[in-house]
């Protein structure tokens, strides 16, 4: 199962059992621009796919709210679903590493001068992104506050650290490339 929407949806079902329409809303609220649905119906086909892979299952009818005449089918995660989701998260780190390495390889294909130009523009973008994150002071009582605020802080810290790593890498790459250009153009 490769679709990031499926995995993201599985995460929401793990968070708490739910039904289609509510999941569409939670999906949009939680992931926002980071992961957009092509249409709400994507959630329903994703639920089917997850159920087919036995990562989620329908809640038995007696566990649904009593008195509701037409209960909506609620889904919950299976033990396998939770385990696979965690495993998938760990694999995502490798995926991220792969993408960063690919970026370095694709940059190295360019002539040093052109690569330096690209680096400069990347650096500018990184600096803009780094300052665009608003600092949000932790209250020191994370257990008291809304989970969404904690999530927002975790997301922003991940962003900031990743940008920092990129800036340091750009600095290193610039030195290497500059050394290369001065060697090439300098006297023997």
């Amino acid at each position, binding site marked *: 199962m490769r679709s990031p929407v499926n995995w993201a949806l599985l995460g929401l079902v793990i968070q708490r059992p739910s039904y289609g329409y509510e999941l569409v809303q939670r999906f949009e609220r939680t992931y926002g621009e980071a992961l957009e649905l092509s249409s709400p119906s994507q959630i329903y086909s994703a639920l089917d796919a997850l159920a087919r892979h036995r990562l989620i299952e329908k809640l038995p009818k007696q566990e649904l709210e009593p008195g509701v005449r037409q209960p909506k089918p609620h889904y919950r995660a299976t033990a396998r679903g939770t385990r696979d989701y965690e495993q998938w998260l760990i694999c995502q780190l490798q995926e991220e590493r792969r993408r960063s390495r690919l970026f370095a390889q694709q940059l190295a294909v360019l002539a040093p001068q052109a690569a330096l130009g690209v680096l*400069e523009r990347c650096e*500018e973008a990184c600096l803009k992104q*780094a300052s665009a994150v608003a*600092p949000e002071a932790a209250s020191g009582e994370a257990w008291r506050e809304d989970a969404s605020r904690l999530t927002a802080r975790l997301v922003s810290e991940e962003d*900031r650290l990743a940008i920092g790593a990129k*800036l340091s890498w750009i600095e290193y790459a610039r030195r290497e490339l500059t050394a290369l250009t001065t060697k090439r153009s300098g006297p023997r």
Partner: protein
Amino acid sequence: MSLLELERVGRSVRQGAHERVVLRDVSLQLESGELLAVWGVRHSGRSMLLRVAAGIEPADSGVVRFAGQALSARCGEMLGKGIAYCSNAAGSGEAHEVLDELMMGQLARGVPRALSRARAVAALERAGAERCGARASHELDRAEAVRVRIAGALVLAPSLLVIEEPTRAVDLLERDAILALLRSLADEGLAVLMSAGEATALSGADRALALTNGVLRGSVTPELAPVLTLRARARA
């Protein structure tokens, strides 16, 4: 006219028989109410840039102007007269009470005792360090020490605060509160120029610049908000 202007500033330092270029042709402008963060690794020239901008160190070439006036070779003349500078060096380690330390500079300038005390108390409060007043400076943790230094700067009612690495070695969960404090000071009209060794400290800045090997990159002039033409009000 910008509050602070650096125009093609160059600076070298002697290291034994060698001369090392620390700042190369650095230009930048900073307006009141702006928070400008300069990111750089060690030996990038970030501390020198701040010291030259604050008029503590002279520039070898180029000009530094504060409120339209060129900072002359008489170093440090604007400190306390519009420019406040906070270094990140460890404190004196002396056992003075924080409140006394904040009053000393003012008393030396002839400010009456009661007034200097009131200003020190207000500055500590503004910097979120009101609980530190009665403590000795060597008893403070890193975040408290930074807040106290900011208070020490605010006492002098500067229009430009130059602060070196305000979040260095600060506990992770305290870091953003300090950045938010600097942001709020800028929102009140203070111009803030800060350096940072980690990109996490750039958050909340109006502009972030990178300094590498004495070369400054990024938007060195303020990005003015686009001018919006007001829509003509529909006639009733």
